């Protein structure tokens, strides 16, 4: 569980207490931010740079954070939007070919089915950016469609339909992979 003991208020970042709170926030939530960035961008270097940028932005806006839950919401939202901007502006567009994908960084816990996990991560990377963001926020962060809709500034029904279509696509591709002979 994330460090719920971080107390944040509207103090100036120059205060020693706030500096310690910021350090605590980075330490406690770096995996959250990095993971969202990595699963959306599928490039560890780019994900690390993006994650650093997010925390630097947090440093600037730290006095606006009102609570620990607000902090987590802020980090999820900022990271996701920054990644979506990167995907929109980069030449990678919304689709990433399998050849371009990085080797997956190690997980904190061992995969029960590492091959399936690796396959699914690659299939998720092939989804359009919008659908990819919905899937990551749903299954990495365990957010409900309503929360995802608020975070992405989308109607709830749009989030639900994107999620549904993404699952259909993923199931279909998995089925195709299972049926096609391995070379």
């Amino acid at each position: 569980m994330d460090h719920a003991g971080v107390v944040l208020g509207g103090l100036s970042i120059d205060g020693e207490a706030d500096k310690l709170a910021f350090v605590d926030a980075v330490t406690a939530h770096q995996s959250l931010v990095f993971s969202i960035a990595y699963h959306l961008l599928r490039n560890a270097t780019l994900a690390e740079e993006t994650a650093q940028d997010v925390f630097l932005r947090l440093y600037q806006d730290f006095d606006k954070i009102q609570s620990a839950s607000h902090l987590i919401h802020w980090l999820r939202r900022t990271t996701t939007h920054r990644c979506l901007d990167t995907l929109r502006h980069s030449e990678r567009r919304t689709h990433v070919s399998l050849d371009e994908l990085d080797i997956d960084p190690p997980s904190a816990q061992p995969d029960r089915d590492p091959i399936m996990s690796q396959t699914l991560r690659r299939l998720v990377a092939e989804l359009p950016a919008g659908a990819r963001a919905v899937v990551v926020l749903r299954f990495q962060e365990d957010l409900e469609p309503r929360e995802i809709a608020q975070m992405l500034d989308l109607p709830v029904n749009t989030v639900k339909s994107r999620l549904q279509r993404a699952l259909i696509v993923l199931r279909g591709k998995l089925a195709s992979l299972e049926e096609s002979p391995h070379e």
Partner: protein
Amino acid sequence: MNDIEDDLKAALCRKPAPPGFAAKVFERMEDGSASSKARWKVSNPFWMAAAAVILMMVGSGVVGYRHHVRTRNEAALNRTLAALSIAAAQLDEAEKRAFPQERWERIGKQLSEVQSSEGK
């Protein structure tokens, strides 16, 4: 069929940030927040030299401007004096035309005669 949603949760679980990530964030943070002080301390001689050059340029510009103003004022003064001189000469000429020399002499003679007759 496997429940794809459980598999997705496992596949998309959070991954640890790379080693040293937090340190890099703090380093960038310190660089950003202390940049104004650090830049002043580290490259102070450079900025001092640049500031000195700029000050010299500005200073020479100020001196030049003052010299220009003084020169301009002196020229204006000279022109004014010249105009007054011309005016004075013209006035003198006008007087001479209005009161010719022989008339002054005649007036002087008459005054002398008057004075001598009164003296008798």
